[in-house]
């Protein structure tokens, strides 16, 4: 606290850096953490699309000339050889419902498989006011794989789906938008088009922007029109699948079974090859950011994020070390004096680290308050669609670890160097 300017700069640097780190940690935990309804995220594989390709063909025409009496007969043979690896054309889109039912739901390795049609915008008119909602069609397993927080009611069971019951699960936010504020929305009816749907469950809106779990309303997939379920080409359709892996089972077991499906499936519509793209939660998040077809770019994404975070922490730490060197150098006379009166290097090391930790801790508290303000601001401004950042105990714990790391790193090096200073020179060269 000796030099107010240095103290201010230190506090500002610490609190600002920690604030950014805490906001990023909150964001990562929010989007990629094991939070409801994605508590099982480590065992979940998403199958958002499949790709089918037809290889280029090399055509060989053979004409045989055969003399039959006085005339000549031509025998033409055309042989087409596929040029493997050279796609003539390809298509990459959602999975057909039939494909999912026949090939994915019947897989042996997963614990559960869910088929769903991801969210699309629908329009409803409560009190003659237009309201756009994001709707997804899901099956019964969907509610077993994703542990939504049910405020009222429940998800769909097998019979609801099989009987094409006009049932609906909605988020509390969507229910309030449609019906207005109420203590209960259960069994109330919502009109979409000419049909009425009964609310059988109300869930808390997930905080993540993940497209699978973030829709406003969910309806049974059996209501999804057949023409959208399966396209007239290949195995394509308007569906996605989600696989819940068995606890403790390697993801590779599921991936290998998917590979077997790819290899054994009968090709149709002149396609030569089929690839089922499987992604985990992080891959799903990373893919649009990289704008690539690589469906397993999650690891790369995490590496980049953690490298940036590491650099972000490293640069101010080095700056703080320098700043602390200056601050402590200003106190070299005090160091000399304390040593003259019997302080050992470890006493001084402890003193300066302690002082730095206090400063860092103060910076941490300021950073924490700033983080709460920023998170609140980001949520209010709805900058990230469907995402609602929250500061929870996990983030708080991570922040404390970061703060300790920051305090130790930026304090220990200058303190150690200064504690080794020669007494006579420090006392001689300066005044307190």
């Amino acid at each position, binding site marked *: 606290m000796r030099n107010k300017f240095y103290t201010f700069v230190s506090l500002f640097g610490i609190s600002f850096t920690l604030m950014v780190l805490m906001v990023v940690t909150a964001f990562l935990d929010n989007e990629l953490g094991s939070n409801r309804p994605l508590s099982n995220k480590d065992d979940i594989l998403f199958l958002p699309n499949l790709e089918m390709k037809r290889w280029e063909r090399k055509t060989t025409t053979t004409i045989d000339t055969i003399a039959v009496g006085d005339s000549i007969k031509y025998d033409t043979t055309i042989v087409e050889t596929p040029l493997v690896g050279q796609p003539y054309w390809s298509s990459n889109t959602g999975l057909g419902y039939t494909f999912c039912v026949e090939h994915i739901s019947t897989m042996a390795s997963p614990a559960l498989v869910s088929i769903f049609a991801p969210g699309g915008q629908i329009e409803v008119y409560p009190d003659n006011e237009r309201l756009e909602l994001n709707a997804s069609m899901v099956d019964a397993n969907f509610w077993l794989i994703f542990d939504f927080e049910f405020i009222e009611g429940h998800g769909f069971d097998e019979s609801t789906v099989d009987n094409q019951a006009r049932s609906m699960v909605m988020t509390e936010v969507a229910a309030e938008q449609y019906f207005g504020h109420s203590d209960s929305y259960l069994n109330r009816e919502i009109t979409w088009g000419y049909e009425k749907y009964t609310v059988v469950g109300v869930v808390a809106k997930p905080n993540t922007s993940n497209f699978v779990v973030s829709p406003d309303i969910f309806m049974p997939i059996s209501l999804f029109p057949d023409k959208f379920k399966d396209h007239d080409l290949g195995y394509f359709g308007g569906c996605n699948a989600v696989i819940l892996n068995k606890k403790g089972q390697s993801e590779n077991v599921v991936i290998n079974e998917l590979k077997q499906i790819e290899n054994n499936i009968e090709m149709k519509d002149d396609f030569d090859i089929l690839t089922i793209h499987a992604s985990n939660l992080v891959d799903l998040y990373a893919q649009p950011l990289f704008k690539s077809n690589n469906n397993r770019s999650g690891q790369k994404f995490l590496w980049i994020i953690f490298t940036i975070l590491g650099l972000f922490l490293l640069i101010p730490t080095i700056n703080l070390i320098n700043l602390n060197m200056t601050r402590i150098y200003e106190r070299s006379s005090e160091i000399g*004096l*304390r040593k*003259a*009166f*019997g302080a050992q*290097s*470890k006493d001084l090391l402890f003193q300066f680290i302690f002082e730095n930790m206090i400063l860092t801790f103060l910076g941490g508290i300021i950073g924490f308050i700033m983080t709460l303000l920023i998170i609140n601001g980001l949520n209010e401004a709805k900058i990230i669609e469907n995402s609602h950042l929250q500061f929870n105990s996990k983030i708080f714990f991570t922040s404390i670890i970061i703060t300790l790391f920051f305090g130790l790193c930026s304090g220990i090096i200058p303190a150690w160097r200064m504690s080794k200073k020669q*007494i006579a020179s420090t006392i001689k060269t300066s*005044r*307190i």
Partner: protein
Amino acid sequence: MIQLKNIQKTYQSDLVETLALNNINLTVNEGEFISIMGPSGCGKSTLLNLMGLLDKPSEGEVIIGGQNLQMEKENKIAKFRNQHLGFIFQSFHLIGDLPVIDNVELPLLYRKTSSKERRWRAEEALEQVGLSHRKNHYPNQLSGGQRQRVAIARAIIGQPSIIMADEPTGNLDSVLGLEVMKILMDLNESKKVTVVMVTHDENMANMTHRIIRLYDGSLVN
């Protein structure tokens, strides 16, 4: 009490080696009050630093109370300084952020002493230098003479057997300087504390038992 044997001290810079002290042999007896005099740059403070174990000689031995601590680890030397030596500097070297009483307590921070004991011993030390009424003031609220008395209180709180005083009256006028000298003489007489004082002032030096004169790093008879 203090024995210097064939002391030599050189400072090495990039290209030049400077001889600060050359072949110093000196004995200071227990309970003695000596002053070291000489022109600026003759090596007085260097000699005092060596006697106070704040620096190490390039050659020779410094023996205090029969112990040669030169080869000992820094921690042991620090402990010895804390137990047996007190220091007074020309420019006081008080910590500006701490009140007077905390400044005085400083040497006891590095001993196993309770905060309560530290406090009453600091008050007692301030009483001895006549500044107990200023214990909660900060150094910048005191005059030069008062600051030096605080520095003396800090030097004596640990009840050292030797006090090293580097021009303790150098920044004070003659009246205040005399006050400080009286305190040091009183400590020497009543508590039998050995005092080694560097000074430029012939009058102050004449008040001590013995004057050691240095010239160009060597003792002058």
